[in-house]
């Protein structure tokens, strides 16, 4: 009996040793050869994409796939410059309220039907339809007649005109310096009207038909998704790949192992492995990283006590140890003091709040909550968020705030925060859709966005006024100055605790070429090719 016990103990001890870091798959990571056509790009994901319908998807995964299936009138190049896509050229009227696009003549839908201006108009009107509940509709309410259309008073949006099959013209109610940027979002993608009408609003996501470099070949829910090359794509020679395949239901750990064994081509680096991977020379040529225009933050619901009081919100800001949070994400990013990421055009440093638990306690006393209070933090169930949440839970315990954690799935979380009165405190991030402060400040913190993305239900008429004044300004200097003023005021009102601006990173298989991480959008797969 005792010998058995010893053996068992030894077995347990033997198990308790770490496994050394395996090398990445072998092969030359770079070369001079020209792009090669063919091959299947293999990826993995833990869940199905929420949508393939561009009117509905508003998350990174959905956007990445929608970009492969659809096109927009204009798009970003590798940076933040706007370049033609479905449109060949465009002109802006002197007063800035009319934009006229000349469309390419060689674009066809994957079904073979040529794309015309009528399809562009149809797609945007579809986006605006209330029945579709799109979170992107608000970006296009500035079109003439959009509000009437949405209210059901008009059968079409008169601000979208199609004078010829290859011309689309837009009339805006006010000058909008961001209009072209908004047209690069997948919300403005051109969908095939025939397919959209045949499948209806609910099912188009399973049968998406667009003009993109790829078509949906197969989607077995919970198992795999396969996008195949569109032979009719208007860019000759693209995409290089025959297909892209996503295996679904693969946890990040499993994806990492599969990557090491060469079974998939792209993967994120699990937190557990991060330090060793960064220190390992074998992985260096295969690392992809970028700074992002992203802010991770704690949202405080300004309509739910005790967060309806400024002093309490400020106390929360003072209590959080952001340095430790940064350590927990392996140092991949910078601490956030304001709302805007530092690389955002127009962003200036905002002093923010230091880590000062004593000051936090004083603020609580001022608010009459010297004994502290209890509340619930809603956060995504993934491992990273849970660790951040526990770190903050510990910070808040020091000032007498008893935090309960409510882990939920990410889709459930982003749905729940939209409804008033449900979520008192949440941990989320926001990534810029276009390089302008309004994409953070107006979309997330203007009082009229309370139905869409202002999940803290923050409302300050002075801030609203500043944002409204800045929006139509074309001169960057004035624009950014007003936005900065608004940001300073917002930080003082503290509806958020800005935590950090994360950097993104991934690893690629040595055979993957032409894959770059883009600051604003998921990577463009049509330019990716496989060296073998």
């Amino acid at each position, binding site marked *: 009996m005792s010998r058995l016990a010893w053996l068992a103990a030894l077995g347990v001890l033997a198990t308790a040793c770490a496994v050394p870091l395996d090398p990445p798959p072998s092969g030359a990571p770079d070369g001079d050869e020209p792009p090669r056509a063919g091959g299947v790009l293999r990826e993995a994901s833990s869940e199905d994409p929420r949508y393939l319908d561009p009117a509905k998807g508003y998350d990174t995964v959905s956007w990445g796939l929608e970009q492969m299936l659809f096109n927009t009138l204009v798009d970003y190049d590798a940076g933040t410059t706007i370049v033609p896509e479905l449109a060949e050229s465009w002109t802006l009227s002197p007063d800035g309220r009319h934009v006229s696009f000349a469309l390419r003549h060689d674009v066809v839908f994957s079904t073979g039907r040529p794309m015309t201006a009528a399809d562009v108009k149809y797609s945007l009107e579809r986006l605006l339809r209330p029945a579709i509940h799109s979170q992107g509709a608000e970006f296009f309410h500035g079109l003439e007649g959009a509000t009437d259309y949405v209210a059901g008073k008009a059968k079409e949006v008169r601000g979208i005109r199609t004078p010829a099959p290859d011309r689309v013209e837009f009339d805006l109610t006010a000058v909008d310096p961001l209009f072209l940027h908004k047209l690069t979002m997948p919300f403005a993608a051109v969908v095939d009207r025939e397919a959209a009408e045949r499948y209806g609003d609910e099912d188009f996501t399973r049968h998406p038909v667009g003009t993109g470099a790829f078509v949906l070949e197969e989607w077995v829910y919970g198992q795999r998704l396969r996008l195949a090359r569109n032979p009719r794509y208007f860019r000759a020679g693209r995409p290089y790949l025959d297909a892209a395949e996503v295996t679904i239901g693969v946890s990040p750990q499993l994806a990492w192992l599969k990557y090491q064994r060469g079974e998939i081509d792209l993967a994120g680096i699990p937190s557990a492995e991060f330090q060793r991977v960064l220190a390992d020379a074998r992985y260096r040529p295969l690392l992809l990283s970028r700074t992002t225009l992203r802010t991770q933050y704690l949202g405080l619901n300004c309509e739910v006590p005790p967060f309806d009081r400024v002093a309490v919100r400020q106390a929360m800001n003072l209590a959080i140890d952001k340095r430790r949070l940064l350590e927990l994400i392996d140092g991949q990013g910078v601490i956030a003091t304001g709302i805007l990421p530092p690389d955002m055009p127009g962003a200036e440093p905002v002093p923010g709040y230091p880590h000062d638990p004593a000051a936090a306690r004083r603020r609580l006393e001022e608010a009459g909550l010297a004994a502290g209070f209890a509340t619930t933090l809603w956060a995504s169930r993934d491992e990273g968020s849970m660790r951040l949440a526990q770190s903050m839970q510990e910070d808040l315990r020091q000032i007498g705030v008893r935090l309960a954690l409510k882990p939920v799935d990410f*889709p*459930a979380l982003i*749905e729940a925060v*939209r*409804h008033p009165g449900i979520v008192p405190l949440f941990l989320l991030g926001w990534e810029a859709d276009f390089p302008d402060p309004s994409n953070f400040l107006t979309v997330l913190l203007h009082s009229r966005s309370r139905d869409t993305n202002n999940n803290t239900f923050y409302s300050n008429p002075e801030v609203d006024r500043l944002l409204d004044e800045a929006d139509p300004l074309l001169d960057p200097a004035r624009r950014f100055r007003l936005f900065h003023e608004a940001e300073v005021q917002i930080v003082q009102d503290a509806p958020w605790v800005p935590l950090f601006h994360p950097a993104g990173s991934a690893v690629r298989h040595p055979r993957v070429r032409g894959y770059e991480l883009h600051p604003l959008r998921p990577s463009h797969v049509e330019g990716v090719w496989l060296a073998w």
Partner: protein
Amino acid sequence: MTGYVVRRVLRALTTLLGATLIIFVLVRVVPADPAVTIAGPKADPETLAAIRKDLGLDDPVAVQYGRYLARLAHADLGRSYMTGRRVAGVIAERVPATALLAATSLAIGFFFGLALGIATAARRGSLIDVAVLLGTLIGLSIPGFWLGNVLIYEFSYRLKLLPLGGYGTWRHLILPATTLAIGEFLFYTRFVHTNVGGTLASDYIRTARAKGAPPARIYFVHALRNALIPIVTVLGLDIADLMSGVVLTETVFNWPGLGRLAVQAVFGLDIPLVAGTVLFAGVLVLVANLVVDLLYGTIDPRVQRA
């Protein structure tokens, strides 16, 4: 025999009714505002009003229950509030994976447990008896989810022989099935060992021995047949516990079955999906029990005469 069958089926139906009542009470009656509980993250006034209307939450409870039963009869388990898909459809997709895992684990565990149990069936007090008792006691004390992780560590990370969770080929089945099968194996070993051992000690076996019947015949014909009856009984009970083990194992190995679905539904705040999955799992167990009991009826002559 037909009387027995009828009684058993009737019993199963009333138990099923009880199960639906439990779920119904938990989901609709207990929460302060069931509409909010069911709506989950989408609790805006429109959705709430739609739910109230749809479920008739203002009607008396008995009427609601009746309507609920009527729906169940049509296999309408409602719609998942996160994806909008029919719950019954989602469940149907996941059943094969769970069935495969449960059946494989049970078959392996039962077969090897039966074999070892018979092989070690000995008189009480012997060393083997102690070894079986202690061995199974210790083995069964090890939590299954931990064992699963240890197996992944050894076979997927270290030795790289088997895939790290997921579903698809027979190789994916090995580790999860082994994890569950070990528990089953230990349990049946001890159970069969004790019961067969007990039967072996009984009088009529001694008589058979005294008459000079060969030992093998004694074991397999007399002892086994009599021991089979309690074994078959406990098999029915075990299936419910097996389902619980399946939930944990599916989570450890990322196995796309009903258990993992239920857990995911909880964190998706998707009550219709949780309730539907649990109810369905209960039905599965009931059906399995019924099958086992009917089988028992064919084995036990006392029943056939009734």
